């Protein structure tokens, strides 16, 4: 088999980090950081998702083609979200035009 078998402690470590991040994201939500609340929440969620993809989903040890597909999903999601918001966030501008 070509699949890379990770030692179990990797999974336990990732699990512990994920639990800590969950604790952190709840705690931060109750602090008033203004706009940074959303940035922190999404930053932590993105970090959690990244370590799940890399270790639980073994992408760190996958072929380059798999890497390309995974990064492709992020890229297309980025296009979806960013281009949608170029429309919706700029609609208010016409009142100043």
């Amino acid at each position, binding site marked *: 088999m070509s699949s890379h078998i990770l030692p179990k402690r990797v999974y336990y470590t990732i699990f512990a980090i994920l*639990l800590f991040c*969950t604790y952190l*994201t709840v705690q931060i939500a109750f602090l008033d950081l203004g706009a940074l609340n959303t940035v922190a929440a999404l930053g932590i969620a993105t970090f959690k998702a990244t370590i799940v993809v890399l270790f*639980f989903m073994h992408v760190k040890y996958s*072929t380059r083609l798999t890497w390309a*597909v*995974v990064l492709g999903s992020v890229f297309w999601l980025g296009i979806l979200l960013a281009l*949608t918001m170029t429309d*919706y966030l700029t609609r208010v501008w016409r009142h100043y035009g």
Partner: protein
Amino acid sequence: MSHDAAAHHEAHHPALAHHFDSLAQQSEATTLGMWVFLVTEVLFFGGLFATYMIYRSWYPDAFAAASHELDVTLGTINTVVLITSSLTMALAVHAAQLGQRKLLMTFLILTMILGGVFLGIKSVEYYHKFAEHHVPGPDFQFEKEYIRHAQLFFSLYFVMTGLHALHMIIGIGIMLVMLWWSWNGTITEEYSSPIEISGLYWHFVDIVWIFLFPLLYLIGRHAH
């Protein structure tokens, strides 16, 4: 089957499809195929996240007020339950790769149980929302100021968590098949791909929740 492939000792493995040269190549193709499917899933949920982003940017106060009605404690417990189910899934894949059949079946069962606990807690939350008249529609009740836009939040809440829950139900169904295949000997140390790609699906569903939890439950919590 070509003579070259037939000569290859792995070609005799019952799980090897004839159009692959080796189990390793078959496994790589399987993983890649699963990831291509997951890209479509990312964009499927992505459309809902985009909708959420638009309405939250338009009605931030209504979204914060509506988010306060969700139960952070139950949401946090469910996050922990789901992360734990991802650990048991990862350990199931590990056991499959080492050919530890009993351990594999134990971890698959644990994953299903944790998935069931998640769905149970989710249904308790849904029940509360129905009891509190927080389900969008003619019976919806909320502070007058936000009544229209809070319905947008709760529509997104039910659609996003509902689709997520549907993925969990499908995931538990997949785990049942995997349990059957582990039991009847289809899954072996050489052929653990089905468990691996089922794991990819399960972890993906976990990732969706990792984003849903802060976006739905934790908006503007400091204000109250």
